[in-house]
């Protein structure tokens, strides 16, 4: 039948009203697209941010995740190089993995003895070149500021080098040496009693005679790091601070000390076996996580390894919380838009039905069934929906292109540097088609009620209505 054809012409009968209706749908589509694309940007941005630094999965000695923070050294993975080989050379896994690298996390006390300052720190040792490689991960084509990639990291041959948080540098009175900003605050009054940690405990150094080396030629600020070895004995090493790196969370920034893994191993294991507390695994694509997890499970089982692994959403619960929060916001906006569309279409279609009472009577008299009338008006709702949703998609693309190329900068939650605002409508493959389909279905649903009203009309009364 020519139902759609007739519906199309009827829409343009009162073109102003139809246009307003279509625009209402368009605006809803644009709102949903823009907000959805913004949410996608935050979510995928957070993911990229995290995955660049911490990978997708981390493998630990069993129990580390729950108890490791109490005594990291005790949960060291021995012969971790073999484990990495096992993972990266597995025929099923090797194509999915970009980087698998050891890390060593621990706690200790850092002292700047020149200035009598010391404080506790959270230390992390990694392989500099591997981190550099991980930071290139950009599966979602996020616009990441160059500075992030170019950020000075350590180098593999600088085995005494380290990076500390800005807050940490401030508290260790390294403001001048490291060009730290915001160092204007008042320093604590010096008390007569020397803090315990400022005692020179160089004598603790396990390494044979490292201490005897004449004052190092290294010009970088020196920190002495004190920690308990795996065996429980105190140990100390010297770290030369390359630079500072602001951390997104102040608590971390005030305690952060990153270093070459071998320096951390020297501190924690002394002359004993060098271990790692975790293996960071970065995948080519996030969607491979379930597959890789299943394979790892099997691999560890077969090799009788007492290891556990966690993905990034398990390690950072906030990731999931942010997603559900944003999803709630998104649903809220989508619902409001949906209700507006619903009422607009019901209103338009009801008016259209009321204006065409005699026409309804006529075509019913000519022999169109009730269902035909129903179909006729639903077809009009459908067309309004299709036109509005399609126009909405087109306008969204234009708006998104405009916004994305406007170079607006913003700092997403948990970020350190501002990044260009990028609305990523098409990153989530379901957003645009889902929005389109949702609006069209909503338009159809909203026209059912007026259409039924039209279908139920008594022919004789409808014909008398002039």
């Amino acid at each position, binding site marked *: 039948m020519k139902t759609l054809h007739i519906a199309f012409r009827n829409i343009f009968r009162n073109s102003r009203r139809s246009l307003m209706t279509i625009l209402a749908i368009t605006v809803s589509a644009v709102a949903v697209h823009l907000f959805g694309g913004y949410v996608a940007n935050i979510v995928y941005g957070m993911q990229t941010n995290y995955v660049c630094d911490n990978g997708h999965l981390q493998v630990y000695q069993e129990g580390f995740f729950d108890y490791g923070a109490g005594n990291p050294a005790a949960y060291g993975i021995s012969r971790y190089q073999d484990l990495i080989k096992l993972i990266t050379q597995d025929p099923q896994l090797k194509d999915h993995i970009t980087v698998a690298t050891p890390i060593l996390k621990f706690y200790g006390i850092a002292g700047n003895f020149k200035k009598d300052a010391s404080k506790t720190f959270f230390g992390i040792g990694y392989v500099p070149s591997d981190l550099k490689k991980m930071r290139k991960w950009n599966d979602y084509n996020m616009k990441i500021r160059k500075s992030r990639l170019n950020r000075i990291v350590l180098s593999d041959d600088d085995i005494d080098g380290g990076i500390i948080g800005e807050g940490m540098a401030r508290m260790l009175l390294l403001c001048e040496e490291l060009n730290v900003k915001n160092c204007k605050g008042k320093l604590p009054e010096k008390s007569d009693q020397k803090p315990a940690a400022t005692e020179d405990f160089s004598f603790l150094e396990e390494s044979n005679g490292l201490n005897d080396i004449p004052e190092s030629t290294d010009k970088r600020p020196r920190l002495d790091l004190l920690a308990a070895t795996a065996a429980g004995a105190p140990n100390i090493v010297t770290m030369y601070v390359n630079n500072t790196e602001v951390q997104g969370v102040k608590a971390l920034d005030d305690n952060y000390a990153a270093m070459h893994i071998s320096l951390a191993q020297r501190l924690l294991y002394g002359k004993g076996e060098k271990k790692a507390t975790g293996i960071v695994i970065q995948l080519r694509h996030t969607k491979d996580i379930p597959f890789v997890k299943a394979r790892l499970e099997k691999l560890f089982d077969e090799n009788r390894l007492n290891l556990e692994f966690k993905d990034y959403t398990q390690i950072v619960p906030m990731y999931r919380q942010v997603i559900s929060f944003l999803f709630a916001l998104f649903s809220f906006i989508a619902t409001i838009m949906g209700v507006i569309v619903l009422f607009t279409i019901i209103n338009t279609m009801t008016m259209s039905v009321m204006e065409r009472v005699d026409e309804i009577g006529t075509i019913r008299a000519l022999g169109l*069934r009730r269902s035909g009338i129903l179909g006729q008006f639903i077809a009009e709702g459908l067309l309004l929906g299709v036109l509005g949703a399609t126009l909405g998609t087109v306008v969204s693309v234009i708006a998104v292109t405009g916004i994305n190329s406007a170079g607006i900068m913003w700092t997403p939650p948990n970020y350190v540097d501002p990044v260009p605002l990028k609305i990523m409508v098409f990153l989530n493959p379901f957003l645009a088609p889902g929005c389109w389909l949702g609006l069209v279905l909503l338009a159809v649903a909203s026209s059912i009620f007026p259409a039924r009203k039209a279908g139920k009309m008594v022919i004789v009364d409808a014909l008398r209505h002039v």
Partner: protein
Amino acid sequence: MNNSEFAVRLTDVKKKYLMGKVEVEALKGVSLQIPIKKFNVIIGPSGSGKTTLLNLLGCIDIPSSGCVEVCGQDIARLSDKQASDFRAENIGFIFQNFNLIPVLSAYENVEYPLLLMKKPAKERRELTLKMLHDVGLSSHKHHRPNELSGGQRQRVAIARALVKGPKLVLADEPTANLDSKTGQSIIDLMYKMQAESHTTFIFSSHDKQVMEHAEKVFEIHDGLLMEERGK
């Protein structure tokens, strides 16, 4: 006479309307038989019940009591769906207000009943063009109703009513909205079309002038059949 020779057979048909709480009896017990293939006229003053009667004959209404048989079919027994299909197949309507579908061209309006009957495209085209030619509107086939004069609109309506070759054509005061000259030409056209197609025509009017050529005339007054003339 047997059944098949009557297009319509009414037996003691009553039709009541409720206006608020008042009951209005528009037909007060009408019994009549309308022969097939003739030009029948129902005449009566305004408010006498002509439209009410034609609505029953057109299967768009049912009687309050009595029996209405159209083409041998008791219309009260039809479901809404069946009545729709019955109308699509058997009945052509010509309305006082033309009632063309405004978004369709003259051609499309005439074609519409054939679409309802799901006729194939080729047949639709042939029938539609022939019909438009017969009513003298070949040159106006792409005009929308609002681009046609009243007389032209009613011609389109006549073509629309006849295109499917219905058993019964009902015209409820089809000239009431036309000036007398145009009205006369519409009446002439209907007589001509009826003569050619041998379709049963039922034409209602309050104007006695129109019944010159009528083969059969029914006169109703105040819901009652007063007189029946013709063969």
